[in-house]
């Protein structure tokens, strides 16, 4: 018999064990390939999309009244700019429309779909024909996470006027396609566009400036900073409500951050599965050597070398690995579109996945090399085995050193004591099971905590993004209006507190930063400072961890803040975290910012309500102070609609993680119990002969595994509760997060843990049921 036949014979001998190993390696290869492919592809996904859609790298939108020729000249004459385009559009600084299950308050940029343009010419993914006068084309994210389909009615409300349309098509956009950046793009057919433009008048006339760079790898952020620095009236740029700018670098970081986290979780989980498969392989190899030791002795006796026998074992596992790996990778192409759906819901961009040979080969190679290493390591003892010793069964006379849980002394019922004996005698195997269960429980807790905080109790998640969780955000028309509004709002019914929180762009030690300005940071719900404190006095500043790291400065150091052409030095009093704008945030008090802009008055008022319905409050304030209000945002609704795009992604991750957890629990227990029944067949026969019932033996087997599962689940659950936030901090550290405070809902975790233990018990009992098929007589007489 040659080595190949020997390997095939080994597989045939343990068909079901080979199958379960196949399933584990298959799952590992599948997940690994999805993770690696997505990670590979995501690095170029945005750039490829920009190229495909001919989108600009930089975009500025402003009211036509504020437009200046110098803005155009700057981009036209910039040597780094390849193409520049100016286009008229309708600019709504705060429009309202349904997105997901609630209304969304967002900026809206409406373009004429029939106009000719260089950038972003209209390419519809899906469309209705023929064109109707009330048609509107909306970003693809409206379909993937906004809950719209072709033909649905769409109503946009601006300045208390509502305009109704029919969704006639979906398009992709790399810059204005998701709610993340606070500005949404829409296109209207020529007639509808003109009609809306006329209805809204000059106040909504806007200008869109777009530019593409010669070298797409150049930092668009830097160029935008440069523009802000040189533009003739930068203070206007900084605080004008209808001045909006973005660049592809920022969009890419916002759009891909969640996807990168999801793919990292996938790869980490694939790692767990590979680890489980490797441990199982080690277990299987050791068992197959133990079981076939006489067979090995016979082979050695008739002249097979250790190398040949070793090779047959290696080949057996390599054959399973390669088959499972290749099939896993092939079937991952059925899963990647589902993942593509998540990418689409997060980015509003269509994910089309082609063949990625590099990732495929890498996935198979990683799995194969790891399996090879473990198999060689586990099977190496064959070399030391002498043929005579093997033929004698390889057993020493006294294999048992102690008798754990002596029945006459130990406490507890008979089944319990016998189960304890089994536990104590399989220390290594049980440690392995406990370790695996702990790892998958940790991952499950992680995913459940993530989902709970994104989908159910969103406060911590929204704080992580950097947003303030007030109920209503009111933008005063002018600074003097703001001054009058504050005391008036404070006196209104249901108002618990108010706080000013403005955002302007500034430079700190030459680095572009988003400056948060408040009258009192202590009033904010989102206390982003995790070390030190927020600024209290006019010479103090707090900076984000990302800014601190980039500048190499910490608490107690001073920084130079530039806004327009004025500057001032401030003392850093605290470090904060923020995920938005790549974590580039800083915080000044109102008196602090007045050191640079002496006339500065806060214009955005955050209102916190108590016992008052948000919608009713908005109606009431509009009625009472409508003249002084530029814009009102219902923060509750906005949070609901903006987080809806994350919910489906995190839900998919949770489902995947839980499904894999169930698979691993089932597989591990199936393999271990099945092997145990085979190995202890004679023992169970004797017990049956002496009067043990099948149910008693089944319970004994289940009881010998439940404590192990219990230990694993408790360790994993506790670690999950304690370290999920640390793990998230680690994952998000690149995005400027230093301290995640997600709510760990203990009852939910306890339910999950109880569920896992119940599952383990059920699986143990079901697998142990095989014992029913074995008769006492058969086992005694065989």
């Amino acid at each position, binding site marked *: 018999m040659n080595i190949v036949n020997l390997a095939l014979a080994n597989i045939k001998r343990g068909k079901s064990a080979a199958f379960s190993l196949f399933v584990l390696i298959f799952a590992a290869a599948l997940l690994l390939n999805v993770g690696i492919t997505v990670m590979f592809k995501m690095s170029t996904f945005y750039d490829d999309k920009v190229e495909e859609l001919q989108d600009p790298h930089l975009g500025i939108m402003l009211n036509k009244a504020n437009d200046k020729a110098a803005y155009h000249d700057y981009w036209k004459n910039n040597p780094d700019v390849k193409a520049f385009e100016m286009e008229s559009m309708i600019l709504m600084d705060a429009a309202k429309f349904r997105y997901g299950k609630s209304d969304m308050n967002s900026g809206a940029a409406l373009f004429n779909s029939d106009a000719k343009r260089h950038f972003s010419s209209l390419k519809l993914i899906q469309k209705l024909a023929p064109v109707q006068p009330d048609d509107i084309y909306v970003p693809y994210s409206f379909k993937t996470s906004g809950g719209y389909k072709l033909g649905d009615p769409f109503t946009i409300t601006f300045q208390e006027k509502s305009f109704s349309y029919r969704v006639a098509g979906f398009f992709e956009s790399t810059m204005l396609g998701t709610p993340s950046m606070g500005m949404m793009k829409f296109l209207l057919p020529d007639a509808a566009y003109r009609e809306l433009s006329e209805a809204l008048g000059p106040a909504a006339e806007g200008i869109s400036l777009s530019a593409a760079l010669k070298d797409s790898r150049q930092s668009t952020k830097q160029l935008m900073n440069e523009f802000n620095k040189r533009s003739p009236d930068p203070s206007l740029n900084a605080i004008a409500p209808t001045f909006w700018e973005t660049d592809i670098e920022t969009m890419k970081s916002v759009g891909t951050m969640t996807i990168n986290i999801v793919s990292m979780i996938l790869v980490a989980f694939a790692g767990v599965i590979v680890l489980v498969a490797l441990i199982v392989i080690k277990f299987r190899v050791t068992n197959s050597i133990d079981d076939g030791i006489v067979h090995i002795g016979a082979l050695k006796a008739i002249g097979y070398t250790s190398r040949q026998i070793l090779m047959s074992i290696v080949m057996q596992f390599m054959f399973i690995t390669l088959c499972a790996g290749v099939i896993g990778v092939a079937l991952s192409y059925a899963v990647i579109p589902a993942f593509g759906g998540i990418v689409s819901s997060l980015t509003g961009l269509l994910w089309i996945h082609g063949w990625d040979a590099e990732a495929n080969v890498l996935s198979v190679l990683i799995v194969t090399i790891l399996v090879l290493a473990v198999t060689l390591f586990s099977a190496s003892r064959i070399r030391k085995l002498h043929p005579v010793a093997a033929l004698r069964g390889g057993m020493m*006379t*006294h*294999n*048992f050193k102690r*008798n754990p849980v*002596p*029945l*006459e002394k130990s406490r507890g019922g*008979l089944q319990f004591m*016998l189960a304890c*004996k089994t536990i104590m*005698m399989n220390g290594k195997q049980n440690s392995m099971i406990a370790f695996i269960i702990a790892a998958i429980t940790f991952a499950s807790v992680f995913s459940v905590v993530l989902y709970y905080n994104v989908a159910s109790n969103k406060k911590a998640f929204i704080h992580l993004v950097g947003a303030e969780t007030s109920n209503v955000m009111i933008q005063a028309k002018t600074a003097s209006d703001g001054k009058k509004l504050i005391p008036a709002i404070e006196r209104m019914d249901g108002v618990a507190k108010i706080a000013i929180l403005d955002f302007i762009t500034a430079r700190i030690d030459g680095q572009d930063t988003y400056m948060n300005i408040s009258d009192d940071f202590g009033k904010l719900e989102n206390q982003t400072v995790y070390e030190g404190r927020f600024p209290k006095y006019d010479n103090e500043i707090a900076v984000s961890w990302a800014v601190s790291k980039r500048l190499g400065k910490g608490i107690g150091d001073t920084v130079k803040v530039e806004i327009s052409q004025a500057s001032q030095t401030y003392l850093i009093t605290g470090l904060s975290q923020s995920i938005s704008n790549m974590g580039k945030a800083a915080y000044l008090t109102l008196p602090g910012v007045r050191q640079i802009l002496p006339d500065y008055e806060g214009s955005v008022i955050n209102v916190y309500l108590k016992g008052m319905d948000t919608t009713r409050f908005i109606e009431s304030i509009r009625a009472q102070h409508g003249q002084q209000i530029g814009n009102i945002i219902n923060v509750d609704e906005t949070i609901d609609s903006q987080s809806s795009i994350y919910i489906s992604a995190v839900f998919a991750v949770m489902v995947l993680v839980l499904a894999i957890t169930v698979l691993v629990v089932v597989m591990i227990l199936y393999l271990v119990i099945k092997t145990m029944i085979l190995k202890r067949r*004679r*023992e169970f*026969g*004797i*017990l*049956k*002969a*002496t*009067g*043990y*019932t*099948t*149910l008693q033996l089944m319970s004994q087997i289940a009881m010998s595994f439940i404590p192990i599962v219990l230990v694993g689940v408790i360790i994993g659950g506790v670690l999950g509760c304690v370290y999920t936030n640390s793990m998230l901090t680690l994952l998000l550290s690149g995005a400027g997060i230093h301290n995640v405070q997600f709510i760990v809902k203990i009852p939910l975790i306890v339910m999950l843990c109880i569920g896992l233990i119940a599952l383990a018990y059920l699986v143990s009992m079901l697998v142990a049921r095989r014992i*029913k098929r074995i*008769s*006492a*007589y058969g086992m*005694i*007489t065989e």
Partner: protein
Amino acid sequence: MPESNISIRVIRFMPNQLLRTEKLCKTFSSGGVQQHVLKNLDISLTEGDFTVIMGSSGSGKSTLLYALSGMDKPTLGEIHFEEQNISRLNNDQLAIFRRNHCGFVFQQVHLLDNMSVLDNVLASGLLVSRNKREIAAKAEQLLAKVGLEETSWRKFPSQLSGGEAQRAGIVRALINSPKIIFADEPTGALNSAASDSVLDIMTAVNRNGQSIVMVTHDMKTALRGNRVLYLRDGVICGDLQLGAFDGELHSARHEKLKAFLADMGW
């Protein structure tokens, strides 16, 4: 002894009858071929008897023993243990029947390798009694009675000699005070001295009223019984009443058995 003299017909349970079979059949199928191992056996065993089953290899001795003990199910016919028809019990009911009424002594002993001698005995004893202290005391008493030194009680089976292991096996069989002990060639794997020692224990146990059914192919061992059933091709073709063993392997008893076996064509 001619076949017509065999007392195998039992109509009703006598007061001291322990076990009886009616038309007991056992058939094995292999590769579509049916092999009738036991054929319409009507046997009755009396309480306190030491019944020996003999026969040539393949005659169905062990099959009969395991069928009588509820370890295996008959293909046809009935087995009555006292008032209970055990042939109708399912596997779990049979397991409960075995633990409550039967003790087993096997040729290969079949002690659990991973448990000490004492634990092997207690693993059976605690199935029936919940009084751990009482059952442990009983186990120790029995172990001492069969001549196993206290130092052996906490040893593993692999650390015992064959004879010691078999004595431990007998204690395991006795721990629940069974109505009947089934022994399948208990001395088959032992040397002469160890065999005598094991048989002495079994004889002593039987003298105390313990019913025993033993399969053997050894004449010296068979002499310990008070009744010998001879099985040939699945049929009881001889039933010899030897009388109670008096402790002496005298020639008259020996000659009687020898003649019986010669008649059976052994």
